[in-house]
Every structure is written in C-alpha cells, then in structure tokens.
C-alpha cells in the first residue's frame, strides 16, 4: 500500500533580503526503500529547484545531512520514510549558522572546535617512518576506534540544552574527542593539558549530563560513559591543580 507523504520544509535564505522564514509543504508518493535523501532529491528535481540541503555519501558516514526530522535531530540519508508518519516536518539543525533552508554550516564550527581543542595526536617526536609501526594493544586500539567513529554531524549539539544556551560549549562531540586522544598512548598530552582545554564551563563542567546527546548520536557513540569518565578525570585533575597551587604558596 503506497502512501502519499506530505513533507513540510523550513525555507529561508538569510542572505536574500526578500526571504522570510516559512514552512513549505509538498506532497510526494512514497516509494519502497525511500529515504529522506531520496525524497528531498525528488522534490528538488521536480517542484522545488531552489531547495538547499546537504548530502555527500548517502551512507551515514560523511556527516553532512543532519537535520531536525519531526522534532528530532538525525541523519536524513539514514532515515527511511517508512519509519515516519505521513506528515513529515524538516528543520535545519539549531546551534549552527543557517546557510539556507535545511543546510547549515557545521564546517566552520567543527574547524573552530578542532583548533581550540587541538584535536590531533600530539606526538612527542615527529614519526620516524623507517622505524615502522608503533604497536598497540588490540583492545585499546578497538576502544580508540570506537570513539574515532564520530562523523561530526552535529546532532549532539542540536540535542544539547547547554550548547543551545552557551555558544562556545564544546558539546559531546568535543568532549568525546578529548576522551579519544586521552586514550591514545601516542598522544603526549597528560591530564593537566586536557584540563587546560576542557576543565571549564565551556567544557566538561558545562555539561549537565542530561544525555540528550547520547540518545540521538547516529553513530551510537558511548557518550554517556565517556562524559562521566572525563568528568571524573578532570575533577581529579582540578583538585590536583588546587593542591599544587597551595603547595606553592
């Protein structure tokens, strides 16, 4: 039995002075196996040539296509219309600059995050490629890999009360990255260094542990556990910092 979907889409182009934010509704015959990616493309090819939205991989791995789908942030390419009611409403991700319609600028945000948290392996010395591999326990490698799966889609930011209220809050995506590098023996930074980066209200102490992020992470990253670990580690580090200061006095 095939349905006719009614898809309401947020439309607005902030760079066009004449544009007023509004919802626009289109009907579309549902097809078997249809994802929102397919549905939106079909609309653009037929009735809405100027509709903006982002897709690259259509396989849930590039992180371009996050949007708010019936009130919940998620990846459009991974959402089957069959899993949704007939009426679908689509909004751009909050927390990021709006480009147009469903397209937001996660890139600038993620680059700033990468710079401020220095999300790269800080090697003690430059690699000697003739030395060949740096062996690693398979179990540890798996743990790092697990956290490295983040696709920087921004769903956790859109879902996070703190991030919405406090610009500059690094969110689960940022904290997860710190957790990842903290695990990595190749990274020469220690907890004091990480404390510098996230031991504050923009970081781990800003997080209210409401866990909107974990519920909505499309990669199902274990954000809750990581945030808890990091909070404990950073709290310990914070105390150590205070005692050190006292000793010096």
């Amino acid at each position, binding site marked *: 039995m095939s349905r006719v979907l009614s898809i309401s889409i947020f439309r607005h182009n902030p760079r066009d002075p004449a544009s007023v934010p509004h919802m626009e509704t289109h009907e579309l015959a549902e097809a078997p196996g249809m994802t929102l990616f397919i549905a939106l493309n079909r609309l653009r090819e037929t009735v809405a040539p100027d509709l903006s939205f982002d897709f690259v991989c259509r396989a849930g*791995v590039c992180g371009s296509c996050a949007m708010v789908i019936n009130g919940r942030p998620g990846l459009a390419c991974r959402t089957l219309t069959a899993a949704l009611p007939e009426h679908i409403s689509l909004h751009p991700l909050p927390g990021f600059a709006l480009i147009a319609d469903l397209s937001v600028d996660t890139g600038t945000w993620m680059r700033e995050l990468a710079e401020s948290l220095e999300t790269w392996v800080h090697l003690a010395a430059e690699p000697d490629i003739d030395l*060949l591999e740096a062996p690693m326990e398979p179990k540890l490698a798996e743990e790092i890999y697990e956290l490295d799966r983040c696709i920087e889609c921004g769903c956790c930011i859109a879902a996070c009360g703190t991030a919405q209220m406090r610009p500059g809050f690094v969110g689960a995506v940022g904290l997860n990255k710190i957790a990842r590098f903290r695990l990595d023996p190749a990274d020469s930074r220690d907890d004091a260094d990480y404390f510098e980066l996230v031991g504050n209200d923009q970081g781990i102490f800003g997080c209210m542990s409401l866990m909107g992020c974990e519920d909505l992470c499309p990669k199902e990253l274990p954000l809750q556990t990581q945030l808890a670990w990091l909070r404990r580690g950073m709290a310990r580090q914070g105390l150590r910092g205070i005692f050190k200061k006292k000793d010096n006095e």
Partner: protein
Amino acid sequence: MKVAKRTFDAVIVGAGGAGLRAALQLSESGMKTAVLTKVFPTRSHTVAAQGGVAASLGNSTEDNWHWHMYDTVKGSDWLGDQDAIEFMCKKANEVVVELEHYGMPFDRTDDGKIYQRPFGGHSMNYGQAPVMRSCAAADRTGHAMLHALYQRNVRANTQFFVEWMALDLIRDADGDVLGVTAMEMETGEVSIFHAKATIFATGGAGRIYFSSTNAFINTGDGVGMAARAGVPLEDMEFWQFHPTGVAGAGVLITEGVRGEGGILRNSSGERFMERYAPNLKDLASRDVVSRAMTTEINEGRGCGPDKDHVLLDITHLAPENIMKRLPGIREISIQFAGIDPIKAPIPVVPTCHYQMGGIPTNYKGQVVVPQGDNNNVPVRGFYAAGECACASVHGANRLGTNSLLDLLVFGKSAGETVVEDFEAGNLSLKPLPDDAADVSLARLARLENQTNGESVHEVRLAMQRTMQKHAGVFRFNDLLKEGVEAIKAVAERAKNTEIGDKSKVWNTARMEALELDNLIEVAKATMISAEARKESRGAHVRDDALDNAETPNGRDDANWLKHTLWYSEGNRLAYKPVNLKPMSDDVEPIALAKRTY
C-alpha cells in the same frame, strides 16, 4: 562582472584523501597554500571508502612489494606503467605507517601490529594464493584516514576555502598553468586564484553512470576542467564496476566482506565463482567477478522475482566477527536492503565504482602531455593526484585498496614535487592574461540568459542512461557505435541547459549545471575511447574481441598495448606507449601473460 584576484604559492583543488595528503606537504613546508573544496574536507568522498589500504607490511601473512607490484601489473592487464607501479608499491609501507603515527586507528593483530585482510586480486608469491595485504580500520577505513589527515592539516594550519567550486583552469599563451577561476557558493561571486603551482585532486566522475556507488558530488570537475583547457584525458574507457553494490540502492558493500569469507551465490545457491576463477574464487579481480555475475544474471541464474541480482552470503560467519570487522556493512544492509546479513544473504549487482583513467601524470604528480616526439612533457605549474589523475598505476583495472594507496603515495609525491620545485626557485608567478576569467564568465552568462532551454536533471539522466546502456560491464560493437552518436547528441543538449533558480546566493541549480559540463566531457571521453579500442582488456570487454592464442581473453597486445589520449577539441584520439620498464633495477619487467585467477 568584477572578478577578485587572490594570489598564493600554490592552489590545491580538492580536499579528499589526495588533496589533504598533498596539502600537508605544502603547509608543513611553509608554502602559502589555498585548498579549494566543494564540501567541508571530512565530508569528501574518501570518507566512504570501506575496505582498506594496501601495503605489503606482511603482518598477517608473508608479503613483499615485489608480489604487490606483480599483482598490480597483472590486475591492470598490463596497461599500468611499471615505473609508477614500482614507485607506489615500494612507498606503501611508508605512507601507511606515517598515517598510523598521525593517529589513524587501525585494527590490530594480537601482537599489536596493523591488522590486514585479504582483498580481491592481491596474492602471495605471484598469484598462488590470497595474501593479507589490506590495512583496515574495520570497514570505515576511509573515514579514519580522512579524519587523521584532516587533523594533521589543522595542526599544520592549512587554509581551506570551503564551499568554493573551481570552474576553469587558467593557462597562458605558453600553455603554462596559472591557477583556476572559482565560485564562492555562498555569494555566487567568481574569483581568480593565481598561483605558481596548481594541484588537482578532485576525485572521480562515477556519476556519469546511472547506477553508481559514488556520491553526487563526484562529477569529474578536475577532469572536465583539464579537458576544456586542452589537456588530453588518458584511458577513459576503463571504468570499474564493483561487484557488490546493494541491488537497487547502489550503495557499496566492500570486497572486505569477501575477504572475511563472504561467498557469492546464484539462484540455485551455487558458489559460481569456483567455475570462473578456480584459484582466487570470490576474491578474483573485480572486473572478473563483475563479469561472472553479469553472465550468471544474463543466463537466467539471477535471484529475486526479476532474476536481476545475485546474493552475497556471510550467514556462515560468526556473528561476533561480523559485528567486529564489518559493523558498517551490517548497518548498510539493514538500512538499504532491509536485511540483516547475520541471518540472510545480501542482494548485490555490479555497480559503477571507479574511474581508472584521468589526467595524465608521471609518478611525481606532474601533469604530462605529448609535445613533438616526447609523449610525456610536464605542463608547467600543473600537478594532479588521486582518482582524477592517471599515473598510470591502475591501467585497465584497479585492485581494491590500491586507490587509497594511490591517494597517499601520489598525493604526497605531488606535494613533494611542488615543494622541491618551489624551493629550487623553478616556480614563478607568471602574469595573468587579461582574459583569464573570460571562459568562466561566458559559461555563467550563457546560463543566466538561456531561455527555452533543457532541464539539467533531464540531460544528466539522458547521459547516465546512455552510458549505462552503451558502455556498461560488457560492451558491444554496435551499441558502442550508437553510443558515440547518442552521447554527442546529449552533449549538444547540455549546451542549452537552463536553470529554474537564478538567484545569486546558494544556488545549487547553477552548480549542478556547471558540474554537468564536466560530466559531459568525461562521458564523451569514455564513449569515444571505448568505441575505438577494438580489443578486450581489464574492465573494457567487447563482444567482438575473440579469445585465442594471439589475443588471450581478447587482448590484442600487438595493436592495443597503448594508452588512449582523448582531446576534447574535435573529439580527437591519440595514443602513447605503455611504460613496461620498472623504475629501478630492483625488479625485472613483469612479462606479458594471459590473465587468469
């Protein structure tokens, strides 16, 4: 329209694996570099690569670069240049280990080394048995690689121009390359990026086919820009059809699935690859497997109500292993085929996947063109790497995992060449010709003023269907002949595309129209080169090439052991010899032989 001008030491177009690897070299050497990209770097298509990157580390089974080189030459059906192949196979360990140090989270063996899995066409001891050569981060190798490279670029403070689309290559009267014109997608403004060196790393053009594993942004922009600027395209008739695209959806299921023990079955449940490739079976080279599957389907042994696909079976593998080694694949099957591969086999069909040809380069990443009696004269200031380039290491058929390796090796090599030339003072900022932006402005003006034109979507669809029908897995003399006329007709239509949205800002319709110009160049190059090549070799297999002693598998070395060069102007074809001589004396040339698996 006024055109702003920006000046750099180097401009790189593309921020996928190849572009990021090259950028690293330049940024770390302190060159003032601009990297242009249509999408945020980590969204580039490299992110979707699943199975792994080849290197003969020998962590799981014995291995060495000689075997890797042999497999690559044989995989290429002897059309690959042996100097470039030797270079790539020798460099593999270095570039992979480098990435490990940059933080790429590879899977590990029990003793902590990089985990390696078997992959199609990669063998031990010159074809005897499968070898474990593919270094993998589960089934998200591209994601792990691209993020590691990006992070390292943030560290090196690389300057990206995100959501900037390069439009045309700028050459002066001497033919030297002086940069590109590009459009900022946010504003629709055109700028000139004037540079001493220009590196193209724009990826492939898999979107010329209707059914493709490629992302929508893979529109062959670099290849199209080069062709319009008079650079010939090499070996464009060779396209890889990946055996296992999810039937209907086109999304890829990595060969790593077969590396981990997956088996292809026809409607009677038979493991049919045993008949076609007795030694490597399901792990034979991709062209071989894709043809076997197509033959099974054509002969009525396909599965499903329409008998239009075969099945990829991993139900015999331990569920823990599937979850650990192939979690992304399980996710994709559930999502796109509605099937949990732990319980039921996945429906698959051969799907367009990879462009073997491209902008001709040498192993140093310099773009080379024929001039006088020298076939390989570098174009000053112009370099290319990755899927848009043709080094040529993949020849007539690429082995799985050799592309990610190609990105790393030739991305780095192109970067190194530019830095060397720069430091030696061999690069200069030549004055821009007055008409540097005219071609781009004319293309835009044409789109602006077009009335009663063609829809971009419909012309693209016509192109994709023409390519699919006339230049698919198997090729037929009469269909190719008709295909040449058909694609020329589509190309005429593409000259009159009209867009429904003419606003300046964030206009995706305009971008798609400009991308179509590039796709059309690629489609013409493919069809015309394919029609002309009267033999079967690697991925190019035609009905009228017979398998006999002189022409094994239809391969005609006496007449066709040569690279095609297609020039856009006048659809002219030229040819140049294959380099059958390795780079050093470390290895003997790999002698021509019939290709069997």
